[in-house]
């Protein structure tokens, strides 16, 4: 039996979502066609747009459907840069936190090859943005900043960012703020009536919807230059045939997740606390990364731990072979786990950063899943430590 603790990578499609998508899949019609089948498909897309917007406290016209979180992040970062820099060539600076997902970080670094000055803002050891650094950057170069992008909550270590403060600082200098809320939406209240952020990225498959659908929720009046040009759908901001099936799935998944959020956040946080407490008891040198759960400044459904002397690939294999599916939490290059840029930005040294595991919970998680992790953990860590010694490079002296 497999215990699935990688819900932050992707979480099972909700059965009601699958049912609604299958029903929609049985119909024909391009939402841009004017005939009756086209109108029916258009109605499905627009109703989904309204329902999704309602879950976020946004207006339907603010929802731009995309193929997922990565595309929405690219549209926000590149689209805002092109629009803002195009309107005012002095605005060449792009400010992002150093712990952004690669879907934000890499577009920003690419913009650096196109003339942008990209600043990767430092974070505190718990992963929270250094607001003083942002304030200093804005007061020194505020009229030269094109955009700020700071995630709602970190996908690896779960840190919730001080987004309201970020928005306040940026808006004081007339700078728009984008946030990647892919991990936060469905696990934390994301209410755009309560925070004046300008653009928000969300993704369906982290909430019980399908892979391949997401949205950028962009405030009315926010100018975005498109990444995809073509048929002019989505107010010409994002061309491509509208996905009736995907939008139906995403809207329902979001409604279900938001409706269940108050009870699920409490239930999952309790499971997460049991996991963290157990891991610390069984492996005393394990280190929880990100803020302590008691601070309330972390996602309720994930725990990220580093195990000194262990390699992430060993930990992952040993957990997998004992029926526990989890993650090292960081990106791979050609399948090779790399020390996480998030941990390095938090000041963790490279050796410790290599021995990381992320456990993330979701709708189908149970106490048995946590028990399975804790049952396996002591032997897994002991073996991974022995393997780390066996394969460690001989350190040169002097």
């Amino acid at each position, binding site marked *: 039996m497999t215990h699935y603790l990688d819900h932050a990578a992707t979480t099972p499609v909700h059965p009601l979502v699958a049912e609604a998508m299958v029903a929609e899949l049985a119909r024909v019609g391009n939402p841009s066609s004017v005939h009756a089948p086209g109108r029916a498909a258009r109605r499905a897309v627009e109703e989904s747009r309204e329902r999704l917007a309602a879950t976020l406290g946004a207006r339907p016209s603010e929802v731009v459907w995309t193929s997922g979180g990565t595309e929405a992040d690219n549209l926000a970062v590149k689209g805002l840069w092109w629009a803002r820099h195009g309107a005012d060539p002095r605005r060449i600076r792009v400010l992002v936190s150093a712990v952004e997902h690669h879907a934000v970080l890499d577009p920003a670094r690419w913009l650096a090859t196109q003339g942008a000055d990209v600043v990767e803002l430092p974070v505190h050891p718990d992963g929270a943005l250094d607001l003083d650094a942002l304030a200093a950057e804005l007061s020194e170069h505020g009229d030269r900043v094109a955009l700020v992008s700071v995630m709602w909550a970190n996908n690896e270590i779960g840190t919730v960012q001080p987004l309201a403060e970020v928005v306040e600082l940026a808006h004081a200098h007339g700078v728009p703020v984008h946030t990647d809320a892919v991990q936060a939406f469905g696990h934390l209240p994301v209410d755009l009536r309560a925070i004046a952020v300008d653009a928000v990225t969300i993704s369906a498959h982290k909430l019980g919807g399908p892979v391949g659908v997401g949205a950028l929720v962009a405030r009315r009046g926010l100018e975005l230059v498109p990444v995809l040009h073509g048929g002019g759908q989505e107010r010409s901001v994002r061309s491509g045939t509208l996905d009736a099936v995907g939008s139906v799935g995403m809207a329902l998944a979001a409604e279900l997740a938001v409706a269940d959020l108050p009870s699920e956040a409490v239930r999952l946080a309790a499971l997460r606390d049991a996991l963290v407490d157990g891991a610390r008891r069984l492996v005393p040198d394990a280190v929880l990364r990100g803020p302590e759960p008691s601070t309330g400044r972390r996602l309720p459904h994930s725990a990220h731990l580093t195990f000194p002397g262990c390699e992430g*690939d*060993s930990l992952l294999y*040993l957990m997998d072979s004992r029926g526990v599916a989890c993650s090292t939490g960081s990106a*791979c290059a050609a*399948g*090779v786990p790399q020390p996480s840029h998030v941990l390095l930005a938090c000041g963790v040294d490279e050796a410790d950063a290599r021995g990381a595991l992320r456990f993330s919970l979701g709708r189908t998680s149970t106490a048995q899943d946590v028990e399975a992790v804790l049952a396996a953990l002591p032997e897994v860590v002991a*073996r991974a430590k022995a393997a780390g010694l066996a*394969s460690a490079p001989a350190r040169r002296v002097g």
Partner: protein
Amino acid sequence: MRVLAALSGGVDSAVAAARAVDAGHDVVGVHMALSRSRAEHRTGSRGCCTIEDASDARRSADVLGIGYYVWDLSERFEETVVADFLSEYAAGRTPNPCVRCNEHIKFSALLDKATALGFDAVCTGHYARVELPEDGRRSLHRARDAAKDQSYVLAVMGPERLARAMFPLGTVATKDDVRAEAAARGLPVSAKPDSYDLCFVADGDTQGFLRERLGSTPGDVVDADGAVVGRHDGAWAFTVGQRKGLGLGRPAADGRPRYVLDVRPATNSVVVGAAELLSVTGLRGADVVWFDPPSAGWTAGEVQLRAHGTPVPARWRAADGGLEVRLDRPVRGLAAGQSAVGYLGDRVAVQATIDEVERR
């Protein structure tokens, strides 16, 4: 048994893993990332270092229905195999990095990590046989396919580690059979070309790699009497027995071809001369790996002196902590740094790294 199948991304290791699965073992595939510059996407097979190789290995594991992991051993590889490669060339010797990789990586770092993680054996696509005779001492033998035999590069692993090694391809008749088997199993690598180049030299340009890492150090090319006959850009660029690329402007006085006789890092000079001066009748080996108990008495057998080289009738014995070898007939162009492997029939009896050669 719990078996770790090393998957290079080539056809041999994929079929070896498939055979381990067939034998009923609990198999997990591991691809070793060895190169620092693995971000490059090179085409053609080099069997370990490209993204293409890693994805071929993953695809093979998927077809076999086994787990797949990538282990990053690039730091260890750099500190052992690549460092040895460079220091040996810098010392005027001719290293065999495949031997060093088997010694330090495949049957050391990989095998030890696998053992620590609970695996009983490491399975590779090498062509060699392991036998367990009556006396319980495992022995290493040439592969059935003599043309593909790799016992020469494996001998360095020694007898103890054989108990944790598995070479399912040692008994196949020919490489073509392996390709046919791969195709029949639906493995997508069945037609992938064999690898020949050094996996860590990105574009196959070994001279360029050495120049970049060791730097240019111009010096003299001299004849056996010490007379300067030319200039070179770095003594490391030459290998004993080499004939081409000496860059000598004028032919020798006797008009006969000249070969590299010696590389002398101390004076940064390269010695050239006639072919017969290359003849070697004996050698001394260091870092000896004994499969049979060491003996001060002579043992008569055959010695192989390079990968896929023809074995030479010879005698050997233990002497002063090393290995003394007398060749029954002279061999040309033997370089220090290469591996010497003594065989009794098809069985490996001893292995050593050539330290000194004896010319008549």
